[in-house]
């Protein structure tokens, strides 16, 4: 992950989707289709307790009676939910104790992804949990974290080892019937990450999860639950990749964050799902529900860089329940070719003196459509609530679109809400100016885009920021002219 400048350059020379390879690993995949029996079998596969099985079934019941939402500013042919396999696992069943036990093919895949576990251990100080297709493969640094009482493991493991914690919090931020995709996820999620930071503990390293869809015709439904107990702190990173495929793949994740009194959670995402080819064929449908709840004096900060997916539908949100709590949302969403993104946030002010900040940067190129959709809601009890929103759009060429849909609902007179929005175009004069200084057009565009995105890039942890910049550049290659 820590790229040197030289490596960065080398990476830039690749034009194709760089994670577009397929690893031949023996995997066990359920037949396609979804019914009660499949939900039970997933639960059984994971050796889950009965309460969990029942919870899933309840979600499945709710989902059956729900309609796929259509309000987003995106157009796609709806997935056939009976044509997807809901479980796919690399065939070595047991949890790996050491890296030596891991399938060498799988390790090679991680190398290609730029995640060398050995390197990770030595250099980065990042604890990584990797979810490939549906199963969590390896978690590094578990022991180091355990000394501080920090739990960082797959959600399946957490359900077995820490059922009380899971039972207490799962579905409390995003109820199973919250929306169509959250209900689906609740019924069929096959793995994901779990993290618990005990009272007063400051997590000494960045925690990180990599998600990857490998198997054809499978959906990925991972579930992440992060709990920061009173006065604790954690910074959490999430990276996503998928190989290039002609058909569309479905990804419907749920991320729940709980920040108890005086706690702080920083959640950063660099999302690079396969966006489809330049003609709009293939690509991942990314329908994700992410939400955090802030108790008294706590803070949740979402930072995301989105360059992938054919269709994105995602609104990382904060429920500012406790007094003096703070919600932040920093986002860069880049769309190229035929990509469509409808993304933004919801800031729900319930407590007194709650504050939220929204900085959204949308970059549209090719024939893509990029929408910001944000809700700022101030409830009657939320005295002295404050929000600042800034939504900037950058357009490249004449065939793309940028849209902003801000919703503001204020029910308390003391609220202070500010909203700023700008739209600009990368100018030929900017490109020529760079060219004259010896900078070629692609690099020039990357420079302008990076400058435009700087406020958000600065919020990312250092190594992630470099990776994110690189991604922005790669995603815009071939969009010149």
């Amino acid at each position: 992950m820590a790229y040197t400048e030289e490596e960065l350059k080398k990476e830039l020379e690749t034009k194709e989707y760089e994670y577009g390879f397929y690893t031949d690993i023996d995997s066990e995949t359920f037949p396609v289709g979804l019914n009660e029996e499949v939900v039970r079998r997933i639960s059984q596969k994971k050796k889950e307790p009965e309460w969990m099985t029942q919870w899933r079934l309840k979600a499945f019941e709710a989902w059956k009676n729900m309609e796929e939402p259509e309000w987003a500013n995106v157009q796609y042919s709806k997935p056939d939910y009976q044509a997807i396999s809901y479980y796919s696992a690399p065939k070595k069943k047991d949890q790996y104790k050491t890296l030596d036990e891991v399938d060498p093919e799988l390790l090679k895949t991680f190398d290609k992804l730029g995640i060398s576990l050995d390197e990770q251990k030595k250099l980065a100080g990042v604890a990584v949990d990797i979810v490939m297709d549906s199963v969590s493969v390896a978690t590094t640094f578990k022991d180091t974290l355990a000394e501080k009482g920090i739990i960082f493991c797959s959600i399946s493991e957490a359900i077995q080892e820490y059922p009380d914690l899971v039972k207490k919090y799962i579905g409390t931020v995003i109820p199973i019937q919250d929306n169509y995709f959250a209900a689906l996820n609740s019924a069929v999620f096959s793995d994901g990450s779990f993290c618990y930071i005990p009272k007063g503990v400051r997590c000494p390293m960045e925690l990180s999860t990599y998600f990857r869809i490998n198997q054809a015709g499978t959906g990925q439904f991972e579930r992440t639950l992060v709990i920061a107990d009173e006065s604790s702190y954690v910074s959490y990173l999430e990276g996503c990749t998928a190989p290039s495929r002609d058909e569309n793949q479905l990804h419907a994740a749920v991320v729940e964050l709980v920040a108890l009194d005086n706690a702080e959670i920083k959640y950063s995402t660099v999302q690079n799902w396969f966006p489809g080819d330049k003609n709009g064929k293939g690509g991942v449908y990314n329908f994700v529900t992410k939400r955090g709840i802030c108790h008294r004096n706590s803070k949740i900060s979402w930072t995301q860089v989105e360059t992938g997916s054919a269709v994105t539908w995602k609104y990382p949100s904060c429920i500012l329940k406790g007094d003096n709590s703070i919600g932040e949302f920093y986002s860069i969403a880049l769309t190229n070719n035929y990509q469509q993104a409808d993304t933004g946030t919801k800031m729900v002010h319930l407590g007194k003196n709650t504050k939220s900040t929204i900085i959204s940067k949308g970059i549209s190129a090719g024939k893509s459509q990029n929408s910001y959709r944000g809700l700022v809601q101030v409830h009657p009890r939320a005295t002295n609530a404050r929000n600042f929103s800034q939504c900037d759009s950058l357009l490249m060429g004449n065939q793309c679109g940028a849209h902003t849909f801000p919703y503001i609902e204020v029910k308390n007179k003391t609220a202070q809400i500010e909203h700023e929005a700008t739209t600009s175009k990368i100018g030929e004069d900017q490109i020529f100016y760079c060219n004259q200084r010896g900078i070629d057009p692609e690099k020039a565009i990357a420079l302008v885009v990076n400058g435009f995105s700087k406020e958000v890039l600065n919020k990312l942890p250092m190594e992630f920021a470099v990776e994110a910049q690189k991604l922005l550049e790669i995603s815009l290659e071939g969009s010149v002219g």
Partner: protein
Amino acid sequence: MLTIENLNAKVEGKQILNGIDLDVKAGEVHAIMGPNGSGKSTLSSVIAGHQDYEVNQGTMLLEGEDLAELSPEERAHKGIFLSFQYPIEIPGVSVTNFIKTAINASRKAKGLEDMAANEMLKKIREKSSLLEIDSRFLSRSLNEGFSGGEKKRNEIFQMAMLEPKLAILDETDSGLDIDALKIVANGVNKLRSNDNAIIVITHYQRLLEYIIPDFVHVLFDGKIVKSGTKDLAIELEEKGYDWIKEMA
């Protein structure tokens, strides 16, 4: 250094340059003067390779190499630098980051490694003090919110950093007060050497009191109608451009 023969160019279908001949040798400073609309800025854009301008006749050679087929960035790599009349803003990109990117792009084109960070830093310090640039200035977004004087000083700072063979200063004096003008001119003079050449494009003689040219050319209606030494600039200042127009 630069040899231009019978250069004809048009923009948006309109013929602007009508047969320019110019020979600039290493170590020389040439001034190109002329009234508004005579083609001064077009000439600088054409030399730099701006795609909106179409060369329909004539040749431009830089050290014997034909520029016709080269892109603007390739021309920059060969050592052509244009100080813009209206420098462009790039929000969020610092002066330092921009110049670093530019230097390393040229180095890469020459097959060299990126400049080492400490070397870059040393160079930035040296060149910014030459132009009396405050270090805080270097972290600001490129040209964003810069005063006219700051923009022009930044252009010359970039020139100092890139060390071009041929620098074209397009109306560098416009928007400068006398103090800023002196600093900029002083900076340019320190960059003069026997290995490089400078073309100063200006409307007024004022700048030429500080950057003394070896040759002065008067451009009118897309042609060089008169050439001389620095005395020609003084003559123009006294008489205005009307007698040139009559002559043409």
